[in-house]
């Protein structure tokens, strides 16, 4: 299907409109931009996890060749630059509020993680700034540090913040305890599990970058930044950090090379370059080197999870009690506090009709990089815990691992869970059946036998997961502590000759919005795809927006676009009625034409657009000229994608190497606009999920040094790690948005990790291995086999 086809673009696997600029090297990422008279910033970062800054001497750096300015935390404080805010306030069990320590853009007194920023050098060239930054002399008084959840909660642990005793940020709960206690009393069996959801580093391939530019003539500040949500950055930077009103601050997020959550947040460097550009009156550019990304991009996951499941003799789930401890890092990043709570605790029912669920979450500070949302954000943690626990329950009851799942599936909708959410629709049997068929489940025993013949172990793992996307509505999240609304905005401008510009508050950094949204609009207006341009990423062009995260762009942002186009169509009807000399109620709009019902009298959409801008014959008393509409869409509920993932692994018992042999994902992501893009999103999510399960882990040593601080030590998944993925969809449409879409960006990363580990354990169980933690590296697997063998002897 080409760009000039009309009709039924929705649902077609159209190759992306935006591809060409990336294919020929003309994409424009932040680091590709250069502003006239630009300077370069290099940040001095703490080598210590925790230390008092005793003194700092910047004189040699300031005198170095090419240096324009050197600033420290003192300058930030003197200028009253505000603390970088956290966007979600959690209320403790006892009704008090979470501990919310300050987060200065440059630290003046005490550093709290390796990579914490203490000074910035601004010079004519990057090389000069880099050379000068080494000349800053800082005297540190190193203090004991805590890096892991376990160390942070230990008796007498060093405190990251004096105001947070026990290093506790908050102590939160959800659901009711009494019914859970009751369920445990009556249980046939109680299945317990303790897991660590490993800390990972997002590693979008484009390192973060930012350019601040001050225009003295207009008193305007501009920030070019690698962001998933430029308007949110404008709000946080303007209102909270710099005290600049929105109309004086423009935030542009041009082409962005992947985000995965890590580019949602407002970072210190963004504040530094904008603030400094005003101070020196010249643009300031900063680009992270990868080693800086490792110690300054927000990390993901890092939660210790304990759970107890009460089950009946026949495998029916009776009650679930979850106790998690989440690592927040040294400071509260933008959405950090919502991740283990409202994005994870609310998911603990999963696809199962467990009647009583009670979730307790404690969050702790550590001397590490802040932890925040990473592809899935809270939902992978919940899913991993549930699906490991369900497998364990089946094993302990001697039940089939699929049977126990089916036994407990939710089958009637809407379904109110005991943990706040109401699922609108789903069909978990259908996705499971599809997954098993795609996995050639029937012939698995033959494949296992064949592996064993070659001296290899083979295992199969399942995960029947559910997630919640498009977090909303604003009134609800506001009541829960969110400091922003979670609607989306769109503006649709029809040009006089009938082509259309669509302005969306979401941001595409790989998701293909320029194509998917164009398909939606083109179909709605009966246009060809080349007549529709999607614009995003510039707060001066787009009225407002909340950005792209939580798989929300289509279900929330797309719905706002549909609403705006509805308004265009409605206004067009009034104009058409006038031109066709008919009653407005008799006008129908279909396939790009306004027709008087029951006649062949019609006007093409382009003619109506032209009339709107050249209103010579026009219902000027009733309708204003022009054809441009905006809409805000605030969803009534979350959406609930769900599905079944099946993974087969082969293990080399001599080395412990796990080879992923088969990956199947059958998902219900709601109505699909572009299956090519949806499949691509699935593939990427699966790779990240398998990466977390088998390869990736951010490791801190006891002193708080990051041991996995480069690609030499942090294992990124490569092409050779995967087979071809088998993905499929079974659609149940979301009932409460006009598109029927649910969201697809995160499902792979959410669903697949437990399927991988369940497969590894399935392979190792005959040897006596009962547990393995992510990532299941070769050495860990080999050691588990050795330990089991020595126990067996």
């Amino acid at each position, binding site marked *: 299907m080409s760009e000039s086809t009309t009709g039924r673009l929705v649902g077609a696997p159209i190759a992306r409109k935006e591809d060409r600029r990336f294919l*020929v090297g003309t994409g424009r*990422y932040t680091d590709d931009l250069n502003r006239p008279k630009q300077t370069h910033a290099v940040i001095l970062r703490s080598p210590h996890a925790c230390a008092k800054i005793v003194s700092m001497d910047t004189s040699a750096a300031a005198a170095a060749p090419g240096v324009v300015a050197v600033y420290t935390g003192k300058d930030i404080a003197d200028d009253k630059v505000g603390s970088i805010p956290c966007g979600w306030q959690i209320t403790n069990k006892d009704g008090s509020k979470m501990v919310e320590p300050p987060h200065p853009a440059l630290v003046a007194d005490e550093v709290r993680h390796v990579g914490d920023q203490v000074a910035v050098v601004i010079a004519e060239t990057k090389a000069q700034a880099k050379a000068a930054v080494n000349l800053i002399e800082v005297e540190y008084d190193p203090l004991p540090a805590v890096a892991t959840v376990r160390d942070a909660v230990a008796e007498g642990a060093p405190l990251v913040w004096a105001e947070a005793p026990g290093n506790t940020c908050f102590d939160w709960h959800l659901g009711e305890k009494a019914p859970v206690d009751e369920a445990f009393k009556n249980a046939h069996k109680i299945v317990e599990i303790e897991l660590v959801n490993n800390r990972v580093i997002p590693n979008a391939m484009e390192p973060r970058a930012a350019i601040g530019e001050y225009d003295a003539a207009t008193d305007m500040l501009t920030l070019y930044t690698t962001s998933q949500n430029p308007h949110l950055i404008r709000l946080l930077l303007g209102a909270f950090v710099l005290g600049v009103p929105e109309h004086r601050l423009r935030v542009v997020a041009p082409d962005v090379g992947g985000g995965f959550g890590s580019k949602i947040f407002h970072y210190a460097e963004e504040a530094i370059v904008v603030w400094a550009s005003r101070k020196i009156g010249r643009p300031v550019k900063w680009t992270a080197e990868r080693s800086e990304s490792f110690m300054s991009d927000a990390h993901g996951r890092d939660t210790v999870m304990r759970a107890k499941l009460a089950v009946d003799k026949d495998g029916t789930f009776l009650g679930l009690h979850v106790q998690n401890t989440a690592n927040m890092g040294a400071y509260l990043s933008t959405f950090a506090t919502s991740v283990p709570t409202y994005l994870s605790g609310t998911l603990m029912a999963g696809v199962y009709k467990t009647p009583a669920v009670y979730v307790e979450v404690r969050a702790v500070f550590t001397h590490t990089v802040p932890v925040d949302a990473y592809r899935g954000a809270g939902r992978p943690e919940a899913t991993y815990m549930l699906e490991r626990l369900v497998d364990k329950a089946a094993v302990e009851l001697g039940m089939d691992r699929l049977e126990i799942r089916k036994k407990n599936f939710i089958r009637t909708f809407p379904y109110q869970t005991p943990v706040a959410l109401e699922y609108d629709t789903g069909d978990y049997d259908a996705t499971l059946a599809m997954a098993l068929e795609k996995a050639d489940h029937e012939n698995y025993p033959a494949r296992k036998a064949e592996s064993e013949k070659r001296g290899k172990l083979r295992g199969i793992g399942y995960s029947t997961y559910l997630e919640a996307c498009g977090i909303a509505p604003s009134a609800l999240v506001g009541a829960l502590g969110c400091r922003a609304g979670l609607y989306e905005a769109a503006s649709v401008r029809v040009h006089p000759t009938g082509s259309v510009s669509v302005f969306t508050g979401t941001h595409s*950094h790989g998701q293909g919005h320029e194509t998917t949204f164009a398909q939606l609009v083109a179909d709605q207006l009966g246009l060809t795809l080349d007549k529709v341009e999607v614009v995003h990423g510039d707060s001066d062009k787009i009225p407002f927006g909340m950005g792209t995260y939580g798989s929300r762009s289509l279900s929330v942002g797309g719905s706002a676009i549909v609403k705006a186009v509805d308004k265009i169509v409605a206004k067009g009807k009034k104009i058409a009625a006038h031109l066709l000399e008919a009653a407005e109620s008799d006008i129908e709009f279909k396939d790009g034409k306004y027709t008087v019902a029951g006649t062949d009298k019609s006007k093409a959409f382009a003619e109506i657009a032209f009339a709107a801008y050249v209103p010579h014959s026009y219902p000027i008393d009733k309708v204003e000229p022009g054809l441009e509409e905006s809409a805000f869409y605030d969803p009534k509920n979350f959406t609930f994608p769900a599905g079944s993932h099946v993974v087969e692994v082969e293990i080399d018992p001599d080395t412990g190497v796990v080879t992923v042999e088969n990956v199947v994902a059958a998902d219900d992501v709601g109505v699909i606009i572009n299956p090519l893009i949806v*499949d691509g999103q699935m593939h990427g999510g699966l790779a990240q999920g398998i990466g977390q399960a088998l390869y990736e882990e951010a490791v801190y040593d006891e002193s708080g040094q990051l041991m996995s601080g480069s690609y030499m030590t942090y294992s*990124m998944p490569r092409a050779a790690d995967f087979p071809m993925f088998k993905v499929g969809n079974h659609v149940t449409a979301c009932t409460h948005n006009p598109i029927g879409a649910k969201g697809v960006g995160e499902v792979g990363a959410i669903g697949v990790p437990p399927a991988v580990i369940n497969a590894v354990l399935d392979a190792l169980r005959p040897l006596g291995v009962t547990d393995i933690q992510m990532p299941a590296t070769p050495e860990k697997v080999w050691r588990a086999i050795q330990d089991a063998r020595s126990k067996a002897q």
Partner: protein
Amino acid sequence: MTAISLKVNQKPVSAEVEPRTLLVELLREHLGLTGTHVGCDTSQCGACVIHVDGVSVKSCTMLAVEADGCEVTTIEGLAQGGELHPMQKAFHEHHGLQCGFCTPGMILSAVDLLKRNRKPSEHEVRDWLEGNICRCTGYHNIVKAVLSCAEQTKEAT
């Protein structure tokens, strides 16, 4: 400063560079060819892969002065006369790119593979791409694109 002359995308280029200038810095900062990206500082991610005298190299791990007298091809020079190279077309048709950041290096690496191995197996493609990291696609559609390009090029020759 050292004077160097080379051909970049078939055009002669002369430049005065500091000897420590990396080839990727020459391309991005001196010549404005920003299609070549920098994604790491340990020579692993492959976002900076270009061709020097017809073979793929990491331009972040080569000095600009070492390219003196060489023929360099970057992603900007792959399409000829506005017509996409078959590998670029294959990436487009098979959705082998999402954010686009790794794409130039990925494509130039894949083009080098097909020069050496006209009909690689899926395994050989995956193996060859070890030095190119992609975080978006799970490599699935990249591998598909390379295999499809190999198939079509084979038919054409």
